[in-house]
């Protein structure tokens, strides 16, 4: 099926099999490998992207369902090679170790801060509830998101 999407402002058109998951379409067809596959069961959130303003896990959506959509992925956060405020805060606060969860964390935090620019710590923790991190213990991630609001 013909699928036309805008990812981080750029338009792509591809012929896609209905069985292809959005995460595979982004990674394999569009070579946007920032979004990761962690669990493939909907639990880890490493594949989180924003589709038409909605944060979702792209391993549970078909690429054909995104036809016509505007997609945001981690590759779209930096501008002209400069990390954005949230990314810089992750770096400053050591909010990652292996970095596997980071693209998903950043997209969840992006969606959270858009809906709620001054979240409490509790709201931050709820906002990243769907993103698992096996390294950091979350404390520095929460600190980084809090710092990005200041």
């Amino acid at each position, binding site marked *: 099926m013909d699928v036309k999407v805008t990812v981080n402002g750029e338009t792509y058109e591809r012929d896609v099999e*209905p069985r*292809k998951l959005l995460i595979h379409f982004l990674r394999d067809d569009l070579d946007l490998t920032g979004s990761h596959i962690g669990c493939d069961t909907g639990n880890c959130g490493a594949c989180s992207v924003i589709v038409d303003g909605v944060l979702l896990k792209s391993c549970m959506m*078909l690429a054909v369902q995104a036809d016509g959509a505007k997609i945001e992925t981690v590759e779209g956060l930096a501008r002209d090679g400069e990390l954005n405020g949230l990314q810089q805060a992750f770096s400053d606060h050591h909010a990652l170790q292996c970095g596997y969860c980071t693209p998903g964390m950043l997209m969840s935090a992006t969606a959270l801060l858009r809906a709620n620019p001054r979240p409490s710590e509790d709201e931050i923790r709820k906002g990243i509830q769907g993103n698992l991190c096996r390294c950091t213990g979350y404390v520095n991630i929460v600190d980084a998101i809090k710092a990005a609001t200041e």
Partner: protein
Amino acid sequence: MLLREVEYARPASVQEAVRLLSDQEGARALAGGQTLINVMKARAASPDALVDLNGLDELKGIDLGSDGTVTIGAMVTYSEVIGSAEARARPILGEVCAQIADVQVRNRGTVGGNVCSNDPTNHLPPLMVSLGATMHITGPGGERTVPAEEFFLGVYMTAAGPGELLTRISVPPGKRDGFASVAIGKDGTCIVNAAASVNGGARVALGCVDAVPVLLKTDSVEEDAVRAALQGANLDPPSDVHASADYRRHLAEVVAVRAVAQARGKS
């Protein structure tokens, strides 16, 4: 994971969706995909064709009737319920949806998908039974309604049969409701859950203890009466790594008492 090859259709109306679903035996409705796509990855289900319900406005929207009835379209997401002023007329709806999984799952998962998948650990089947909701089903033979307590037939089986669609759920007015669970981690999968509605007596629907929600009605809402109803119900819950049958039976009584107490505390 690469799914098995599957056809995909995006119908323009409920009528067309029903036709597509009844024309082809191996066709399945795709709602939020938060269960279906995962079971397709695991090959636990391998439909030949997916009929995507996303984009059908007829299945969207939450309506508050003049008598206080809240009618929820099958394709309404949990996040939409949580954010809806109309759904707040029956506050428990948003309160329970906010306990399901995480932001991403709540943004995609639908009320219709939750009840139609009838996973015994899901949140909404017992809730709809305790609230005395009415399920609206459309199929090749036309429309019909089924009370929630008759809708759930078995694990992953409901009264919305092959070729049929759940279109909306009507929830009668009320406020004195409660929901309690013991889950695997915060907002995780339920080990046991109970939804309660108090109106004179209590309606308590228990989840995770049988293939379908178990409805108990008590004349009194006192704790002793709720405990007696639970003990008289002869529950035969499953055992798994999270809880033995005995422990689950014990927890069922605990969460039932909590859900009723919560409902009684509301005015």
